[in-house]
């Protein structure tokens, strides 16, 4: 290189934190760009009018009162799972096992509901179901945390594997319970409705939404204003620093993961007692993974997660409607969702990094030096 410094064509460097207006402007531009690209894809691939496609999307999410309630309920569920994984992420513990933790909670809830349905008064039954779900979810997170704390195993792989075990446990339970069935459970206690969450004011959605609001507030406080929250962020920043200041890292890992799993267990409970009144291997529906994205998009901020989970649920519900209204395959709606997410996640890059192109003068200088 003749000892000379070479200026690359594109320079990428970390930015100072942008003022929030600017960062939101970048995000806004990304969304507009995504909509334009989606419109192009729509016209090219299907010949449909993109405005109509976006109209379907909006109508799928907001078209009727019932759809709006469902959207809010779906947001509540996704948000709660995202809140559950957040403390672990803040601690740089890659818990990708929320899916399994929700399933473990749901399975415990179903079993309790099925076998104690006619033995306990309803209020007590629901309480027992909740405790069982929380315990099962917590256990499902505790196992990989214990191995991590004790033997420093890889938590990403471990939590991922726990998902498959949970799926198969549910599949096994259904086949064991209904050997001559079709792999579905059917509604539990359909006649007695034992263990079903009450409908507040006749509305089946409100209770779940309220629970998520409370958990969001509590999680916000826990992460930002408690000693525990502080400790886990120190562990996340640097384990060595944490040790140096006397934080017992293993203990923090275990404690945080139990919390993570317990909140996932609550979601499992809500899904079984409040939504499906049954269980299937698909009960978490991949939301344990979507939650990872929600949490990251929101930079682990519980309040911002309300928006990111809302966005993802809106896109999902909208994609469904597109396929119904326009007779397009479901995959098409997913393509649009993918494009929009790609742009939104991509915009985070431009918020965090500065891109500088090599200026003409620098280039000129290089040529002269050569």
């Amino acid at each position, binding site marked *: 290189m003749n000892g000379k410094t070479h200026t690359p064509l594109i320079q990428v460097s970390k930015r100072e934190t942008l003022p929030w207006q600017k960062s939101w402007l970048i995000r806004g531009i990304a969304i507009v760009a995504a909509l334009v690209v989606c419109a192009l894809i729509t016209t090219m691939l299907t010949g449909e009018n993109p405005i109509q496609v976006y109209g379907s999307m909006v109508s799928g999410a907001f078209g009727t009162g019932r759809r709006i309630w469902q959207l809010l309920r779906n947001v509540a569920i996704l948000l709660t799972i995202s809140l559950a994984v957040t403390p672990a992420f803040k601690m740089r513990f890659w818990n990708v096992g929320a899916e399994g933790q929700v399933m473990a909670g749901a399975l415990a809830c179903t079993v309790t509901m099925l076998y104690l349905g006619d033995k306990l008064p309803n209020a007590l039954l629901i309480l027992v179901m909740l405790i069982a779900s929380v315990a099962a979810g917590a256990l499902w997170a505790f196992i990989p945390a214990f191995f991590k704390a004790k033997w420093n195993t890889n938590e990403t792989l471990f939590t991922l594997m726990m998902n498959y075990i949970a799926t198969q446990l549910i599949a096994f339970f259904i086949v064991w319970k209904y050997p*001559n069935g079709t792999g579905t459970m059917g509604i539990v206690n359909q006649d007695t409705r034992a263990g079903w969450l009450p409908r507040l004011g006749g509305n089946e959605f409100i209770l779940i939404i309220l629970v998520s609001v409370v958990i969001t507030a509590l999680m916000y406080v826990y992460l930002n204003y408690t000693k525990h929250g502080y400790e886990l962020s120190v562990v996340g920043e640097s384990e060595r620093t944490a040790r140096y200041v006397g934080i017992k890292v293993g203990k923090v890992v275990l404690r945080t993961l139990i919390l993570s799993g317990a909140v996932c267990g609550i979601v499992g409970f809500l899904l079984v007692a409040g939504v499906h009144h*049954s269980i299937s291997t698909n009960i978490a529906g991949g939301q344990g993974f979507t939650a990872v994205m929600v949490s990251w998009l929101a930079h682990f901020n519980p309040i911002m997660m309300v928006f990111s989970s809302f966005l993802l649920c809106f896109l999902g519900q909208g994609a469904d409607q597109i396929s*119904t209204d326009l007779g397009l395959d479901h995959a098409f709606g997913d393509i649009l969702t993918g494009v929009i997410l790609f742009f939104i996640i991509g915009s985070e890059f431009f918020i965090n990094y500065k891109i500088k192109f090599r200026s003409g003068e620098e280039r000129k200088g290089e040529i002269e030096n050569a």
Partner: protein
Amino acid sequence: MKKVIAIVLCLVMCVGALAACSNSTESKMKVGFIFLHDENSTYDLNFLNAAKETCEKLGVEYILRTNIPEDQKCKETAEDLIDQGCTIIFADSFGHEDYLIEAAKDHPEVQFCHATGTKAHTANLSNFHNAFASIYEGRYLAGIAAGMKLNEMIASGKITADQAKMGYVGAFTYAEVISGYTSFYLGAKSVCPSVTMEVTFTGSWYDETAEKEGALKLISNGCVLISQHADSMGAPTACESNNVPNVSYNGSTIKEAPNTFIVSSRINWSPYFEYMIGQVKDGKAIDTDWTGTIATGSVVLTDVNTNVAAAGTVEAIEAAKAQLEAGTLHVFNTDTFTKDGAKLDSYLADVNTDADFTPDTEVISDGYFHESEKRSAPYFDIQIDGITLLDVNFG
């Protein structure tokens, strides 16, 4: 920024509202259909085609909702369809039933019709109905085509009579599947007495990989002809690439398997859809359990692929079909099969669904098993001799 978002949202909502307005026409009857999968599944495609065809023929509006899982989403979809003005809701998968019943309880003014379900006759709901067809008769006829093919292989010296083993890719060890493969087997046995059969289960109604693997396993076990009760192209394509004859289900797979497809039986749902819509139009009640037959045009066979089928297959099928229609031939004639080496004179089937599958109804009389007479969905679940179940520990 918030303002901008608010304005954008408002605009988009207005567009949505306008789009909704322009769609509304004079109040025509509207039917909502709920499907477990989409047109990639042969099972759902069969329903989708019949739904479109019938509604267009009768001039009623319809909404098709595909990929609706067997959970609360089914009830919510039904209610969404009701919000859009549907007065009849139809769902096509067994697991939809409980959720449809919940919707039926909450919406007594809407009629709910459900294929393959078992609970209508015990649910005490005047607006919830089950429907199915005597598809075991179609399977039996398709079985005759299989048996004739085996005979051809035996006659040509390709296999011995003892090697006449068929393979069957099933979904679940569930009565509908058992009834299906048993009637298929009995059809084959009626022309090829030495036939045996192996059945493998995938544990899913639609799992292309598992169905393909299942078919390949059966072929490597020495099965010389394959049929299936699972909804993907897995088994037909496995047969085509191994040059093993295939008797299909839900519709013709001749395009995918031109050199191995023999014939396929399927339920034609159009007669039921016409009936269901007609009854509501006339203000009459829909039957709690409706069983379509060959005579109603509900049980049909595709054209026989004469390039693959044995000579005389079409005629043999026609002859048996005439006997079935005349009531002189019964598929589950107790003289034609044994269980543990003995003929059955009596059998209690689980007709009234309960959690423990308690047998409750005598179904053998006059020398045959009365399938789909006590309720529309099949309840033949006897493991008869000659059929080996390979793996029942799916999941």
